[in-house]
């Protein structure tokens, strides 16, 4: 297929992500199994219904545990708090930016379990038990990530507001193998809007990291 989606070759099938299951479900599996082993089916179903784990309903400000940049953090937040607002308002991780707040600009891009997502369109409560990486988690101490270095070298920004999202997206884009040509990198970086129009320099930065062989 000759397109900017896959300029050279068709990719290997990617593995569907396996949603994390909650521990108490695993524990409850045994109870459910026992219940279904009951000799009379209708009784078993009634018993299973009685013993079946019912996930709790969470309302109002409630404790949530989020693993961010390798560290477990606990916040008190309502279920309606997005991951973006949890990062910025509850954890002072203001590197992740709020642009449109509707999944149209990419400024809020973070990685969840290694995949880039828009943190404005997911709830914090849904991201418990997952590995969340933000722009603050890219550098190792004072050593910047190669994508950060490349953005500085190529002047991949003007006002800088979209930059954390561009960098998080760029890191993922290279890792996914979607930055192998200019056209492909442009297509697969299209979820990150830059109002200043620094696109040529952003592209140069992403392509340089890809060509350096760094896979992050």
């Amino acid at each position, binding site marked *: 297929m000759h397109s900017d989606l896959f300029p050279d070759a068709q990719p290997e099938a990617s593995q569907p992500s396996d949603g994390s299951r909650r521990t108490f479900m695993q524990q409850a599996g045994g109870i459910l199994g026992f219940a279904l082993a009951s000799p009379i089916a209708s009784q078993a179903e009634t018993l299973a219904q009685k013993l079946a784990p019912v996930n709790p309903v969470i309302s109002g400000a409630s404790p949530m545990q989020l693993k961010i940049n390798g560290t477990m953090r606990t916040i008190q937040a309502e279920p309606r708090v997005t991951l973006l607002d949890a990062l910025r308002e509850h954890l002072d991780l203001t590197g992740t930016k709020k642009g449109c707040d509707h999944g149209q600009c990419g400024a809020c891009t973070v990685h969840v379990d290694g995949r880039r997502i828009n943190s404005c369109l997911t709830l914090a409560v*849904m991201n418990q038990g997952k590995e969340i990486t933000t722009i603050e988690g890219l550098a190792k101490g004072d050593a910047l990530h190669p994508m950060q270095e490349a953005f500085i070298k190529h002047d991949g920004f003007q006002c800088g507001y979209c930059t954390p999202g561009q960098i998080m997206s760029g890191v993922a884009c290279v890792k996914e193998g979607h930055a192998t040509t200019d056209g492909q990198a442009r297509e697969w970086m299209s979820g990150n809007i830059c109002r200043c129009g620094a696109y040529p320099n952003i592209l140069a930065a992403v392509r340089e990291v890809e060509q350096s062989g760094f896979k992050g």
Partner: protein
Amino acid sequence: MNDFSYTQATTAKEATGRTKDQPQAAYIAGGTTLLDLMKANLQEHPQLVDINTIPFKGIEQTKDGLRIGAMERMSDVGENKLVLEQFPAISESLLLAASPQLRNMASIGGNILQRTRCGYFRDAAFPCNKRVPGSGCPALEGDNHNLAVLGTSDSCIATAYPGDLSVALAAFDAVLTLENQKGKQRQVPVKDFYLLPGNTPQKETVLEAGELIVAITIPAAAHAQRSTYLKVRERSSYAYALASAAVGLDVHGGTIRSARVALGGVGTKPWRSPEAEKALVGQPATEATFRAAAAAALRGAQPRKENAFKVELAQNTLVQALMKVAG
């Protein structure tokens, strides 16, 4: 966004039980459509039921084709080898949609249920028959450049499904498996899943209250293997279609043996065109045939002031897509 309670459902039964108890509750999977609409105060729900851990997963080869779990993400389905080999149009429809970030989040079940981009629907300050039945439709005489020319009514001219995947699914005879609150499953072809607006534009699909999309099955076919999805937009990426075409041809000795055609961006629902297919089958695979098919597909078009360009655009899109698969 209104305050709401949240719970996870680990089985379909638990999920549908929640919406039985709380009819105004909504299911959340990727959240990319739902939270967008809730933030704009276009939908309010007292409870969200997280269905991500229900095992509606997997992309499996069956005897007749592929079965894809509704909870699979757009990116995983779009890049899946089986989908790419057997249904290139479906793969392309997914990978030309939204952005990489959104595709990593959005489930394909949710994609099928995404809602219109009509500006009047999306701004609560305006009347909208879809949002507030009987309140009127400013789009009829207003800003309608991105709205439908096929299947419209005096109540609504919105492209109720603005996306891409269901256009390709409708073209290639995909069937949805649904599960209702009684635990009963039924099969509905994608082409019959969406409703025309008529006098009830608020009713967009045949989905019952609380019913879940479990899986999509797509039959393998020669015309599906030789297929493409062509999408024309106002910018080259990350935009909704002004017009799109999902097409597949089975050509032998220069003659078309079977054809599938569906259009996006121009109908009030994903627009399967039996008229175009009829004009293709048994004919030589030439531009003249494709032009005749495109004319047939748009014959019933009812353009408005700002979207009249779509009649020609959709025909050219369809011809170009057919030329590509005819090779």
